């Protein structure tokens, strides 16, 4: 299994089924893999960040790693859509349904002090802008609901999971928020699946970002995940990737290149 699978799932049933796959075909966990990957990435990062101050770490998300240029701040509408949809994803997974997408999502954001600035910005929209955002959110949620049918609680689904792996003595922090994680921790065979839900369309870097997400989970949990995927609620596109040695090797190369590029950019 050395070739990453990249495919588009057509229906909702396909997405969860394709992510989990058939139980008897799950690959065995290689207990030496995570340690080997960590040693490799630490060796490559050491000469790049050895003199950096650990008190001011370089934070890298999957999107930041694969971006050619330094990131710009997304527009308010994109930030708002993304945060609101994340709240609806959590609600759908734990309550099974969403009745009023904008009301439910906005009330969830209002209860989170960390989102106060975004909530203020949403409330500052003029009536047309607010109605536009509500309509867009409803459309995004319709795609999400069609793609994610009810997930059994026994699959241990958790939403908006924060992953944060310090590297090079804390000088680099690889971090992400995984929209949906399913499956118990791996013991003998790979069991964990991760899904990234985005309100943007999927660009050619989607699979590389999934590689970074896989690397993060491998370093964090000590076992490679079974499968990773990305769902665009803008277009309904899905990208799935088997977590292979090749995908993880490419992810390490991407992280090291990203750190080198930022070192070269004052």
């Amino acid at each position: 299994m050395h070739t990453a699978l990249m495919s588009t799932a057509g229906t909702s049933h396909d997405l969860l089924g394709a992510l989990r796959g058939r139980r008897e075909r799950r690959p065995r966990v290689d207990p030496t893999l995570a340690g080997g990957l960590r040693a490799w990435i630490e060796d490559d990062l050491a000469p790049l960040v050895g003199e950096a101050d650990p008190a001011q770490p370089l934070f890298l998300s999957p999107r930041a790693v694969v971006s050619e240029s330094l990131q710009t701040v997304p527009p308010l509408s994109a930030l708002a859509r993304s945060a609101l949809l994340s709240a609806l994803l959590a609600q759908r997974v734990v309550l099974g349904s969403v009745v009023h997408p904008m009301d439910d999502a906005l009330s969830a954001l209002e209860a989170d002090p960390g989102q106060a600035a975004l909530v203020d910005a949403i409330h500052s929209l003029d009536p047309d802008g607010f109605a536009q955002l509500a309509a867009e959110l409803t459309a995004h949620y319709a795609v999400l609901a069609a793609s994610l049918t009810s997930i059994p609680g026994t699959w241990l689904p958790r939403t908006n999971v924060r992953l944060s792996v310090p590297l090079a003595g804390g000088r680099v922090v690889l971090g992400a928020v995984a929209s949906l994680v399913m499956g118990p921790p791996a013991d003998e065979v790979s069991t964990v699946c991760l899904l990234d839900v985005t309100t943007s369309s999927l660009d050619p870097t989607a699979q590389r970002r999934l590689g970074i997400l896989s690397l993060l989970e491998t370093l964090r949990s000590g076992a490679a995940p079974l499968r990773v995927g990305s769902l665009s609620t803008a277009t309904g596109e899905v990208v799935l990737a088997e977590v292979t040695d090749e995908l993880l090797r490419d992810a390490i190369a991407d992280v090291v290149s990203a750190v080198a590029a930022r070192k070269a950019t004052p």
Partner: protein
Amino acid sequence: MTLRHPSPMLPRARGVTDLLAAPGVTPERLDVGLRRVLAARVATLAPGRDLGPVRLDSYTLLQSRQPERSAPSAFSWSPRTSRRLLGLPAARRVILGSASNPIAAARAEVDDVIARSSAPSIRPGALGRWLAEAPRGVLGSVIAEAANYATDLLTALDWTRLVDVANVGRADPVWAVPGAPWVTLRARRDVEITLDDATHTRSLLCVRAGRPDRTLEDDLGFVALADALSRPDAPMPTRVVGLWPSSGRAVSLEVGPETMRRAARLVVEATDSLRRRTGLVAAA
């Protein structure tokens, strides 16, 4: 101080369970002199009773050493601030078999807390009152955060080995300072494992957010001290294991007399810092 790490070659849950459940060395009690001196120093340095109760836990201890940036914001309930209070009992429900999975357990726990909130003894501002009035969208986020917390805890350990010796989500041990009882030390720990029933030796597990940093020994050492102070009839905890699910890290602090002396010094420094800060606020 001795730090130990789980074996990297074992599945993570097995490695952390081995770390937590390893037999302890000869049980040792907290030094009576240290207890007495600590109480006297804290009582002397504590902010006045008129300034309200002072609760010292790992968070306030570490915050007291940070430069003061701005006035701390008032506490409010949120999915984040309620996740441990709901997630721990949810995990206990799954371990005891009264719920089949963390989401079902978190929903049941929220329902119970709301049902209890109508009792006259429940004060305004309590978690139950907030949940009872929360719209559906907020409840969704609250249940999701609690289920994540419970899942982190349930998947971090091999419960088949611990179910008879683990106490999950029991109230945090609290020690009120003799001579200044409005000052309390609270050990924020999530699981207590009985290592030996006869000698009352135990190890503690603390689930923490984010990733470990250089303050981890202070955090875990404080938990050991507060736990030992609150249990004068039992030996000091054998070890305190910190678990950071977001980064997949676990570290065990093996507890000894030096751990306690260092933690006691930090408590005195934190009390002094709090007195100066609250004094400044009161003067302003």
